[in-house]
């Protein structure tokens, strides 16, 4: 109980609350602008969080992402363009509602169910993370090695449409993670005599490059594709909500449960949660024919799902140090930077930090209600901020952010290189999220493998001798077998296209 009280003390400090509020406004703004994503919001925030206390830093990221995921719904309904990929699944449906004159209801549903879905995810996080941590405390390097393997496998298994390219991207990320001094023997690898490379590929500049610079490059060539904001004014968005709740409360619980589960799975985040729950909703609906014509049912499911996924994604991140999506991958990078190794020991050694994260999550979802209301009311002004003014400003932000991580031009060189590389990969439909996961987990994977090998005197069977390690190991191997089997028996893409 003491930990809970000290957690409240940590969060309810004027400075931390100020950071949370500022990040909330920032997240709303970034989320509402099509082309600027929640991941980009996090990427731009991280250099700033570097200078904050751990609690303020976590608060900033949690709040900004929660807001951005909701705010992405706004341009969906008003411009027919999702503000973030997480809203893409139902942007069309929302816009159809607007065309039917139901903009108020649509915005109300999006706001209230986003808040409720977010809280659902938090409840899940609070209930299960400490429980899992108690199991995880018994894990040794053997279990962690398998867990990292399992996490990486899941990332390509569910995260992307094209598993081959996802796998390739993952290997590239792992390869990049080997640059620098190796974790076991202290041998410099792939540094080519460069002093900067000795410290490895700095995670933050790399991530700003992959998520922000590549986005800027894509945006720069489609500058004039601006949408037309709908003329409809937003009235009282809370009328009619109780009727929606009475009719679709089951959808809310289903959507949130689907969202949280997908959030927990490594590699899949809010965007996939929204797509899956929308599809589930349509499949199980009594009136599937209404989907796509401005029907509120699917929106209830998916807008709850994408916000609940956020809380879910933090479960593996906090308990095992294995990210549930690209945002928590960034969070883990930040925690390492702060000298806190995410994992079950944090639950024992500094439980107040874990409780602080819980409190921030609840707080973020609660202030979403008034802030979201304000954002919807002022949406027309926000959506009118032209991209041609935003792009150069973001360029400067990226430059300064990357510079601040190394205090030298090295950070910027790294960011630019990774940005162009990330852009090139995505041009070839190679997703960058597995790469970032590989970059974050690479060191951990190798370190756990090496220390396990030293413990087991080089016997590979050591990885199966402990009952827990053996179970996770066999599970991982089974999953690999399944993937290979699927790869071999799947219809070749060309034949599928030709058929």
């Amino acid at each position: 109980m003491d930990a809970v009280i000290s957690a409240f003390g940590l969060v309810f400090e004027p400075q931390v609350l100020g950071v949370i509020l500022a990040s909330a406004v920032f997240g709303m703004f970034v989320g509402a602008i099509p082309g600027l994503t929640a991941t980009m919001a996090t990427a731009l925030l991280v250099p700033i969080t570097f200078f904050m206390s751990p609690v303020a830093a976590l608060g900033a990221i949690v709040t900004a992402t929660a807001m951005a995921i909701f705010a992405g719904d706004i341009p969906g309904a008003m411009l027919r363009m999702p503000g973030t990929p997480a809203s893409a699944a139902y942007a069309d449906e929302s816009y159809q509602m607007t065309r039917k004159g139901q903009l108020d209801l649509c915005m109300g549903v999006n706001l209230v169910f986003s808040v409720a879905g977010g809280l659902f995810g938090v409840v899940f996080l609070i209930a299960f993370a400490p429980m899992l941590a108690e199991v995880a405390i018994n894990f040794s390097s053997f279990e962690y090695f398998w867990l990292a393997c399992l996490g990486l496998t899941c990332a390509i298994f569910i995260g992307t449409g094209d598993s081959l390219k996802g796998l390739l991207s993952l290997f590239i990320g792992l390869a990049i993670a080997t640059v620098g001094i190796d974790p076991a023997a202290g041998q410099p690898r792939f540094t080519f005599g460069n002093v900067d490379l000795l410290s490895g590929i700095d995670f933050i500049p790399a991530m700003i490059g992959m998520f922000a610079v590549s986005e800027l490059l894509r945006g720069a060539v489609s500058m004039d594709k601006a949408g037309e904001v709908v003329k409809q004014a937003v009235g009282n968005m809370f009328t009619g909500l109780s009727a929606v709740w009475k009719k679709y409360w089951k959808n809310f619980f289903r959507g949130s449960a689907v969202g949280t589960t997908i959030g927990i799975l490594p590699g899949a985040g809010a965007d996939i949660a929204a797509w899956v729950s929308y599809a589930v909703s349509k499949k199980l609906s009594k009136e599937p024919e209404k989907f796509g014509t401005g029907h509120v049912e699917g929106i209830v499911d998916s807008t709850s799902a994408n916000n609940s996924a956020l809380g879910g994604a933090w479960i593996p991140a906090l308990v095992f140090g294995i990210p549930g999506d690209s945002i928590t991958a960034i969070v883990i990078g930040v925690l390492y930077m702060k000298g806190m190794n995410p994992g079950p020991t944090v639950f024992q050694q500094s439980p107040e930090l874990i409780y602080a994260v819980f409190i921030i999550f609840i707080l973020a979802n609660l202030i979403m209600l008034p802030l979201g209301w304000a954002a919807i009311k002022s949406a027309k002004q926000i959506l009118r901020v032209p991209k041609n003014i935003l792009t150069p400003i973001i360029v400067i932000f990226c430059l300064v952010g990357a510079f601040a991580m190394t205090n030298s031009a090295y950070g910027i060189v790294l960011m630019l290189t990774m940005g162009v590389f990330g852009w090139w990969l995505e041009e070839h439909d190679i997703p960058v999220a597995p790469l970032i996961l590989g970059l974050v987990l690479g060191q951990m994977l190798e370190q756990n493998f090496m220390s396990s090998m030293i413990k087991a005197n080089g016997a590979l069977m050591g990885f199966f001798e402990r009952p827990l390690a053996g179970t996770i190991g066999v599970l991982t191997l089974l999953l690999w077998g399944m993937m290979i089997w699927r790869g071999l028996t799947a219809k070749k893409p060309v034949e599928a296209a030709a058929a």
Partner: protein
Amino acid sequence: MKFNDAIVGAIFIVIAGLMIQQSFSFPGFPGQDYGPNLFPRIIAGGIILCSVLLILRGLRTRAATGQAWLAFDDWTRVPRHLISFFLIIGAMLAYILISDTLGFIITAFVLQLGLFLWFSVRPVTAVVVAVVSTLVVQYFFASLLRVPLPRGLLDSIL
């Protein structure tokens, strides 16, 4: 700019090959069978495996649909978009090269102004926004967060 999957695969095979070649220069771990060269080799092996599959797929797609080795997207044919693309990269390169000499304030202002004008922001707006955002970033990062942004020419004033 989009290469056929086979070419993408070939590029990565070359990179993975270089990785393996480099890994021979890593000394072993005393008393261990596994040293610092193990992981790079496994990873390079993974890259090669994926790349081979990618090459096969690329060749099959090409045989079935006649996909070109290298295709250009629509925007690459519009000179204005092409310039926009390289201006973003160029601005960042320029920052790396000149910010130490000119200092953050002048560099950031000039780069933003240039980009604004290219993206057809009205000149007055462009100047005002460039000044304001440069000063805000300078204040926030240099004064509040104490990031040593280069001072350059303005060293004596700041």
